[in-house]
């Protein structure tokens, strides 16, 4: 049975479904300083390869809408359909819409394998918690050692670090447009997601917390 068939046969359970977030979520932003949401089931592919190999970089770009992986540490590109996050000197994370993983893995693998690159589907390993709003940075600062000030962590920056001792891939996804509040996506291992959500929910109480649709 292919993976699509499996997905049809077995209902998927999100990492935070037991919290009933959908019932708490509402669309209007209200006055809350912190907005939390879970983006369930995003496609995530781990990409390895040699950034000094033009063939590899071109192969990635041929699949990802013409965008090469960043070689500048701690930065990500947004292609419109994909996010491509720097994880290490020869390692990136491709984030795409739910359901895209199988086809994207096949296409990327076909493109990069001749250049020694590898692609691994890691979609199920992590869920994505979105922290946004005027106090997003304040709430993250309570548990994260990264300097998230805009001078040090610009729009489009990403980093692997810890939030409340939980290993996360942190990605600033707002564009720093005037009046636009900061927005961070936290890709966290799903077995830690419940703890991380409760930490953020608790740490955000002094600013007010609104649960948003993912």
């Amino acid at each position: 049975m292919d993976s699509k068939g499996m997905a049809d046969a077995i209902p998927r359970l999100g990492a935070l479904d037991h919290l009933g977030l959908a019932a708490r979520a509402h669309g209007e932003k209200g006055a809350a300083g912190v907005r939390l949401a879970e983006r369930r089931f995003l496609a995530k592919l781990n990409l390895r390869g040699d950034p000094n190999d033009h063939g590899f970089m071109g192969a990635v770009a041929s699949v990802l809408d013409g965008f090469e992986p960043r070689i500048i540490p701690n930065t990500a590109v947004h292609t419109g359909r994909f996010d491509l996050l720097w994880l290490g000197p020869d390692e990136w994370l491709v984030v795409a819409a739910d359901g895209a993983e199988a086809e994207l893995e096949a296409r990327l693998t076909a493109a990069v394998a001749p250049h020694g690159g590898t692609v691994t589907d890691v979609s199920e390993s992590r869920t994505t918690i979105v922290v946004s709003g005027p106090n997003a940075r304040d709430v993250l600062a309570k548990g994260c050692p990264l300097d998230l000030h805009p001078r040090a962590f610009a729009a489009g920056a990403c980093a692997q670090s810890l939030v409340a001792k939980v290993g996360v891939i942190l990605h600033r996804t707002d564009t720093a447009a005037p009046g636009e509040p900061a927005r961070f996506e936290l890709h966290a291992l799903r077995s830690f997601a419940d703890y991380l959500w409760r930490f953020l929910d608790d740490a955000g109480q002094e600013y007010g917390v609104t649960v948003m649709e993912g």
Partner: protein
Amino acid sequence: MLLIACPWCGPRAELEFRCGGQGHLTRLTDAMEVSDAEFARYLYMRDNPKGWHYERWNHVNGCRRWFNAVRHTVTHEFHATYKPGEPKPDLPRS
């Protein structure tokens, strides 16, 4: 909180790292030939200076890469961090 400069990620908090012991150890190429005493010295015996120390570190809660560092075992000061394969920097005077 100590800031440690990962050669790839830049300065990061100490709690993202783990120390991996003495650096620049070279694997024996003639392990079958050397005496037990020599092999034990290679396998177990480590420098234990009060002062500057060449060490391996891992950015375990970051990019997960290994790198080398020169650290002072009394003050915890990092004199240098550098990628594997890069030459040993000279030790500072003090």
